[in-house]
């Protein structure tokens, strides 16, 4: 039996012992690299490795048409965001209202969400091939074949479409969890009043789910900006002609293929800032619209 004093001190320190290993891992392999990366972005590559170069990397970035194209694509994705949120939102509404077959729909819709982007990309490489099922379907209604992944104007939309196919099940589940917190009597009252669906959405569902909608907006945006790599890598490799570059793919190419870690770090820092800015904008916009209702 150790003396009481030492036991007490051990007990006081016990909570810290419980969190210590986790804190160590998170600090060493997430927070420290973040600081290191920002630091890296102000140093040179190649012959100037390790020397301070000020904002040179950032100047290089904003002169690089590939990087500017990647940022333009981010703008496009942000514009597509409402669509990517509305689809699972509406589907969840119908499932919640128990349309015939809602159980089956729920199970089927969620299933692509567990597939790796690599597998989704590989499957759609087959489907979107020039002589594949997608063009065959268009052919039956008399539309010419589309070069889904080879046409610079179409390729990004094709990849985003696959991303939505592969992820909307997650958002659907989040929406359904939000619906579970709604007061059912509100909906029943609205139904008895004979409220049509658009009114129901506007006056009961959207105001009741403000927090869920915010959450889905933010997570969908993070998904669009940071989990498209697998699809880009398998489906387009950033092509055709750099048309499907996104910042994350640019970072990968500069770091892994062209051996320019400092430039890649600068791109990382820009991506991080873009995410922070878009996230804050979203939250303030959504807050304001929430108050208007």
């Amino acid at each position, binding site marked *: 039996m150790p003396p009481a004093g030492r036991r007490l001190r051990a007990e006081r320190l016990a909570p810290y012992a419980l969190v210590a290993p986790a804190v160590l891992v998170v600090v060493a392999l997430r927070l420290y690299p973040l600081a290191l990366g920002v630091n890296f972005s102000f140093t040179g590559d190649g012959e100037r490795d390790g020397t301070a170069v000020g904002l040179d990397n950032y100047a290089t970035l904003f002169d690089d048409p590939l990087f500017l194209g990647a940022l333009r694509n981010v703008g496009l994705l942000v514009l597509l965001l409402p669509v990517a949120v509305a689809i699972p939102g509406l589907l969840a509404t119908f499932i919640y209202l128990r349309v015939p077959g809602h159980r089956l729909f729920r199970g089927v819709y969620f299933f692509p969400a567990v597939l790796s982007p690599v597998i989704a990309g590989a499957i759609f490489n087959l489907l979107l091939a020039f002589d594949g099922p997608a063009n065959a379907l268009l052919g039956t209604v008399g539309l010419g074949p589309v070069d889904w992944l080879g046409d610079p104007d179409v390729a990004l939309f094709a990849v985003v479409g696959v991303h939505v196919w592969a992820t909307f099940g997650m958002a659907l589940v989040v929406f359904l969890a939000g619906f579970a917190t709604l007061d059912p009597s509100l909906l029943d009252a609205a139904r008895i009043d004979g409220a049509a669906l658009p009114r129901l959405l506007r006056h009961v569902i959207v105001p009741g789910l403000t927090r869920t909608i915010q959450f889905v907006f933010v997570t969908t945006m993070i998904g669009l900006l940071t989990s498209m790599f697998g699809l880009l890598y398998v489906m387009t490799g950033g092509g055709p002609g750099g048309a499907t570059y996104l910042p994350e793919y640019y970072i990968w190419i500069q770091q892994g293929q062209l051996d320019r*870690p400092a430039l890649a770090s600068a791109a990382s820092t820009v991506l991080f800032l873009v995410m922070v800015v878009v996230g804050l904008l979203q939250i303030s916009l959504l807050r304001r619209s929430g108050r208007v209702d």
Partner: protein
Amino acid sequence: MRARWLASIPMAALALVTIYPLVFTTNVALKTRREYVLDRFSPAGSPRPDNLATAWTSVGMGGYFATSLIVVTCAVALLLWLGSMAGFALGSLRFRGSRALYLGCLAALFIPFQVIMVPLARTMTTLGLIDTRPGLVLAYVAQFLPFTIFLMASYYAHVPPEIVDAARIDGNTLFGVYRRIMLPIGTPALISAGILDALFCWNDVLIALLLMPSAENRTLMVGVTSLRGQYSDDIPTFAAGVLIAAVPVLIVYLFFQRHIAEGVAAGSTKG
């Protein structure tokens, strides 16, 4: 009432669109090359499992599969252990600095891997962990630990504090409370977190690509990305390889669909 039936029709069409890509791929995987070239839509005449065997052996998918299995198992075990300890401390105990630590964890949740991947690769090289399984395990643990802690902490926050107090009065140390009380109580959350973490690690391609450059260390998903180049003129074998990589995940989905959905929902509603 009639309106609900109307909604069912486009939803059923969408369900078909959701499921068809996998049906098509499965069908292609069971065809011969000749059947595929002649007509890619007809059902496979006589289903041929030898494409699967070819993909498994000649590409070396068996080896990739083993690497993935070992790495994911170790990563998930570590994630659950560290995540439940920290989650218990941050979710149900109050101590100096606990709030700050919790917020730090939440902040780490929002650092995308792309932002830290360059310095992380360098750090791993310095530590001599690049291109090794332990290195990849550590990277996965670091990547998904904030999420795991968050899930466990929000679960433990709903456990009545009297339970902890009573166990302390019975003479348990804090570690005793964790081991004898909190781990068993936390089983549902541990299952949800474990399955989600396993899916994240299993499906990852970017981290594995970055930290495992040599061919013999490929994980299964990185292996799938290399299939395309090898089988560009043999689509059925390519489809078979893709199918092999998808099967474990589909099995997990069929058995644990409820747990996966619960984990996703818990992560969203308690935030």
